[in-house]
């Protein structure tokens, strides 16, 4: 274990542990947009910037992203200096200009006192802030059906060549992990459409309600060893089944 200082407070941590994790454990609030507990940090959104220095740096300090900066002995971390707050505010202004329709960004901007953004505003329909959570989730935890394509201002999240993906399993992990609800999908009856592909949802074997796509069940089955059919029970019926099992247990 090592000791470091966050906003004047001495705290303990493992060497190399990321500053964001330590701060959150200690109840110090640092805003994030591209951070997701399930995947490795990326450092893309730059909202978690903090100022770090060391006693031997002779007054020199630098801004770093807390999400991936490794803790070291005697590091002095300040999470709300003028420079930090100003940089976060500017980043939010850039994001408002990109996604003027996003509620989350608007709320965060208000917190940072950004009442009158001055930069030219983009399209109202744009919601994606390119935080990379969806692509990291899909690539590291699911099948890698989507990635970031093009570069710079042209960058977007999509399937390769924006064609219908044959590896997508329709699990919605991308859409559900998106902080700004930018990934659209449609679910009507026993049909779910995402990334231009329509999946048939298998009806619950007990009540007929939609469960999940066959592709997703097969993918899960391969990894868990459970039978594919076991996934075709809806959440309600599964709960009822569990309740019945408990009822039958003689206490």
């Amino acid at each position: 274990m090592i000791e470091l200082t966050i906003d004047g407070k001495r705290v303990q941590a493992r060497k190399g542990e990321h500053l964001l994790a330590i701060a959150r454990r200690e109840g110090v609030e640092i805003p994030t947009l591209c951070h997701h507990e399930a995947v490795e940090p990326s450092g893309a959104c730059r909202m978690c910037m903090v100022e770090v220095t060391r006693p031997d740096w002779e007054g020199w300090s630098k801004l770093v992203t807390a999400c991936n900066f490794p803790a070291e002995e005697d590091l002095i971390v300040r999470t709300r200096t003028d420079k930090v707050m100003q940089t976060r505010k500017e980043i939010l202004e850039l994001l408002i200009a990109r996604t003027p329709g996003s509620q989350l960004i608007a709320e965060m901007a208000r917190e940072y006192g950004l009442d009158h953004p001055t930069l030219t505003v983009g399209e109202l329909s744009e919601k994606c802030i390119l935080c990379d959570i969806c692509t990291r989730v899909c690539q590291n935890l699911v099948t890698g059906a989507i990635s970031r394509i093009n570069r710079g201002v042209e960058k977007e999240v999509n399937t390769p060549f924006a064609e219908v993906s044959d590896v997508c399993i329709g699990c919605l992990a991308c859409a559900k992990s998106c902080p700004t609800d930018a990934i659209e999908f449609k679910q009507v009856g026993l049909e779910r459409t995402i990334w231009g592909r329509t999946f048939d949802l298998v009806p619950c074997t007990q009540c007929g309600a939609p469960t999940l796509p066959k592709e997703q069940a097969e993918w899960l089955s391969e990894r868990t060893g459970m039978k594919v059919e076991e996934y075709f029970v809806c959440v309600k019926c599964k709960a009822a089944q569990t309740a019945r099992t408990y009822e039958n247990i003689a206490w």
Partner: protein
Amino acid sequence: MKLTLDTFHKFQKEQAARLEGRKAITVCCGTSCRAKGGLDVASAIQTKLKDAGLDENAVELTQTGCHGWCEMGPIVTVEPEGTFYQQVKVEDADAIVASYTKGNAEEKLLYRDPTTRQRVASYHAIPFYAGQTRWALRNVGRVDPANINDSIARGSYVALNRALTSMTPEGVLNEVAEAKLRGRGGGGFDAGRKWRSAAKAPGFPKYIICNGDEGDPGAFMDRTIMEGDPHGVLEGMILAAFAVGSNQGYIYVRQEYPLAVEHLRQAIKDAHAMGLLGDNILGTEFSFDVRIARGGGAFVCGESSALMRSIEGKVGEPRAKYVHATDKGLNDKPTVLNNVETYVNVPLIVEKGSQWFANTGTDKSKGTKAFSVVGKVLHSGLIEVPMGTTLRELIFDIAGGIPGKNRQFKAVQTGGPSGGCLPEKMLDLPVDFDSLADNGSMMGSGGLIVMDDRNCIVDVARYFVHFLVEESCGKCVPCREGLRHLLDVLERITQGKGKMSDLDTIERLCDVLENGSLCALGKSAANPVRSTLRYFRKEYEEHINEHFCKAGVCPALCTYKINDQCTGCTLCAKVCPTHCISGSRKEKHVIDQAKCIQCGSCFDVCNFNAIDILGSNG
């Protein structure tokens, strides 16, 4: 034939003796001279030599790499005299061979000094070359890059042989560290320190990477070295591998350099065949191999962490460098990544010693630096000088100054899109890593773009930001979004729609780029804008307040008008692409403003200062 530590020395002496005093005609076959017909010139001379009954024992015809003075190409030299022929055409082959057999030089192909009007017989007497100290470029233009024996004759692999015979890896590390060699790719990081960290880091395998993804507009030092002296690069990498304890290396070459790839491939093959690369180098226990990785055309892949992702086959995006590549680089293994020019300096240090190397240069920047000097200079090309040479010496003494009798020096952009624009008063600045950085620019990889009073400074800033908008990878918010808005503001100013408050917006966007960006591309992206605003603020203000672009570049902010000095020579009317200049011979001409596109062609050709550049409303 595989060489060993025992046989190398003898072989090297034999090759050196062969080269000593050899009679040769060399033809530059670098990329630029090839484009101008260098290969055809070479084969024409070959045919004429044959016709004259001169076989290769009498005179060798050598196809070399680039001499770095591409506007003079195709370049032909005659050795050992050092006769320098410029802009040689296929038709000149006859005359060259004829004068060769007579033992004299072909007058009309020699370089003519623009001031003395005298023809200069030898390479070494031409100011462009005489003012240089060619260390990194020592073999470029002197050897046939496709012939390993040529390189060995000029001393390639002597340092390697020395290191493997009488030095320990620690010894090589110490030499490089004591020579205070700093990375030539831009940042100027201490190479010895980098190597030592990688040598100490736990992990196997360790990698040596050579960064040949030279992306700065107008820069071509690394291309020239890879094309013209591939063995120099390889030897530097092998020495680094020996010092660090690596067995695998990569040379990352940008997509646009096919000739560099061809020559490096040949060099790797030849070095393998001679036991200088691969398993058991020179018969020792030390093994090291090199592969070529080709870039896909993204500027950002010249950034070290993005480059490594690209070699891994992933999207070329940078990542945080809080954990150094020397600990976790390529495939998360300890990695040394240096630039082409850095590696090519290493054999010199190992062969001649750190003291010798450190005797040249300034206190903190040792050795030499190659620059590609382009733009408004008389002689654009590759110029290698000791660190600490002033910008004035580089631009005026060696590159010949600003062409055009009425043109004035305005600014020089060092370091490409990551560097800054320095004004006339900074010309006596010694060129080294620290002086440039202290003044808002940077050394960068060595691109040097010279501008005169016909370059609009706001337009220059706009150009670089536009370049970066297109090349930003788009991963982090400040670089992707900030640059887009910065470009937006600069475009507004050049179109005459700027407000004074835009200058504050520029400062604000520069701050967030510098403080917030993930990698050096974004962090340094503000430099061209910041430096132009710092040194040429008045020009920005003229654009905004007076709607006046005094350089005559921004079409919305200038008008060209003919004044009373006009002699009616009709030259302007002849060059005008829209035919909007009218007037009779020997009478004052007039520009039809409705048709004028503000291209400035008339201004550039006028010999009588008869054309004025005025603001948008005249």
